[in-house]
């Protein structure tokens, strides 16, 4: 396995963040749905962040993911007491209800790219998602045994 591939970098980062997760205290039930969903979100965010940083800034979608996470964090910090989370403000897509517009919504950072570049970004994104799923599945398998 390549020493410095995306997969290894992602796995390193992800496991590190998992370690740093707030451990559930013994008193609080770890099976409450709220807890679990919270942890789900944290884990997902950790996965996204570590994936994006493993990929590096050279891809549009990884930059967009990092930007999104930072924005959310800033919003949380600033508006913690305020109600009403603002929806992620994406730029309006002029493509309408077509498949291209759908794809743009799916791939982070794909709102303003032309189709050719969008397809390239999608390919890389799919590859990295596959890696992510594989690593996470491995981890789950390891820990559940």
């Amino acid at each position, binding site marked *: 396995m390549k020493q410095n591939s995306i997969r290894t970098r992602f796995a390193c980062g992800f496991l590190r963040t998992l370690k740093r997760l707030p451990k559930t205290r013994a008193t609080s039930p770890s099976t409450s749905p709220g*807890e679990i969903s919270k942890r789900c979100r944290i884990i*997902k965010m950790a996965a996204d962040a570590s994936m994006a940083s493993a990929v590096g800034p050279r891809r549009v979608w990884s930059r967009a993911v990092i930007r999104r996470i930072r924005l959310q964090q800033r919003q949380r910090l600033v508006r913690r007491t305020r109600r009403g989370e603002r929806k*992620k403000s994406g730029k309006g897509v002029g493509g309408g209800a077509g*498949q291209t517009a759908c794809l743009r919504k799916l791939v982070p950072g794909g709102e303003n790219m032309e189709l050719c570049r969008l397809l390239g970004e999608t390919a890389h994104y799919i590859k990295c998602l596959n890696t992510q*799923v594989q*690593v996470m599945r491995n981890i789950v398998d*390891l820990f559940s045994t």
Partner: protein
Amino acid sequence: MNRALPEMLHCTDLSVLERQQARIKWQQESFHQQQRYFDENEFSGFSGPFQAQQFQGLVNRDMGINGLVKADPGLDNGWADFGQFDGEGSGLGPGGFGLGSGFEMNHGISRTISCPSAAAEVEVEVAAETKQRESALPEKMSSAVGRESFKKRKADKNQNLKAIAEEESKKKRIKECNEEGESRITEQNSNNNNIKRETSADTSKDNSKVSEVQKPDYIHVRARRGQATDSHSLAERVRREKISERMKYLQDLVPGCNKITGKAGMLDEIINYVQSLQRQVEQFLSMKLAAVNPTLNFNIDNLFAKEVFPACTSNFPMGASSEIANPAYLQFNPLQQVVSCSGLEIGISPDMAIRRTISAPIPIPETFLDSSCFDQIQSSSAWDGNLQNLYNMEFLQGRSTSFPAQQFSGSSEASNLKMEM
């Protein structure tokens, strides 16, 4: 004599021009050096005596010309080829020379357009158009490659040309060359018979091909036969080909897409696949990890080292990284091994500042370990620093205030959060 010969040139040059167009490419290859020479320095001064030379050469017929023109090894090649190439004997002599010198003469003519001593305005009009293309292109050409491509082309005109062009990377061409050169040549050729049109179309393609080879800054495309040649459709074609190439690549990535051939179907499949992958990461795996994680905090490192990085343990260098934070690492050796292995190429970043900022607000030794691991793996580049900041923000917040889950949720789950809190 000078008066009579220009008229002869007039007559011959019109037919010569057709052949010129058929052979412009190799002319350019062999003459590019001369052209530069001509273009830059002397040609404007040459007009008079040069044309006199040409006229003499006309009289002298083909191969004696070599002595007249500037020394160029490519020239001999071109001339030799030219000698073989033309089966037609009739107009060949003056035509042949006209080809060689007419090419130069075009430059001369274009250079001397303002000069009253320029001989033929007819030639100017006709040749100027070709000359524009020629002068635009030659600077980009190197004779060696051009000669090779010329030989290839000699073997098999049409098919090889297209094959070669498609082998090479297709790029977009300069607008002027496209519009002026090709369209004007096609205009001119529309007056001639089909053979001439073919050959000139070939030469236009040849020119585009040659310019493809040499000039890396511009993107050149070849206008295929029977297709529009203006720059917009060329650009469109390039774009379409790029898109189809990427669609093919995506077809390989997405499983089960081999049978689907349409773009729309492929896009649907791709969208479904991306959605399913994202859903997997989000729901299934996060859920499992959330359920599993609390019980297995400290085993992560061992398992990590063993399973995910089977080859790493053998490569553990025990370099300076271990010296930096050795006491903290004692209980977490496997992870350290892994960390060092992965961090080898990036190098060790002795960025104590980062470590301190990370560890200072967190008194827990476990997190100290994490931050030092961070330092090793991730160099002090800004990008990696971002990740550390992200994690800090996320998890510091999580620790200091027990589960302000609002921080971590996506916007779509805002309502859930409110309910929970």
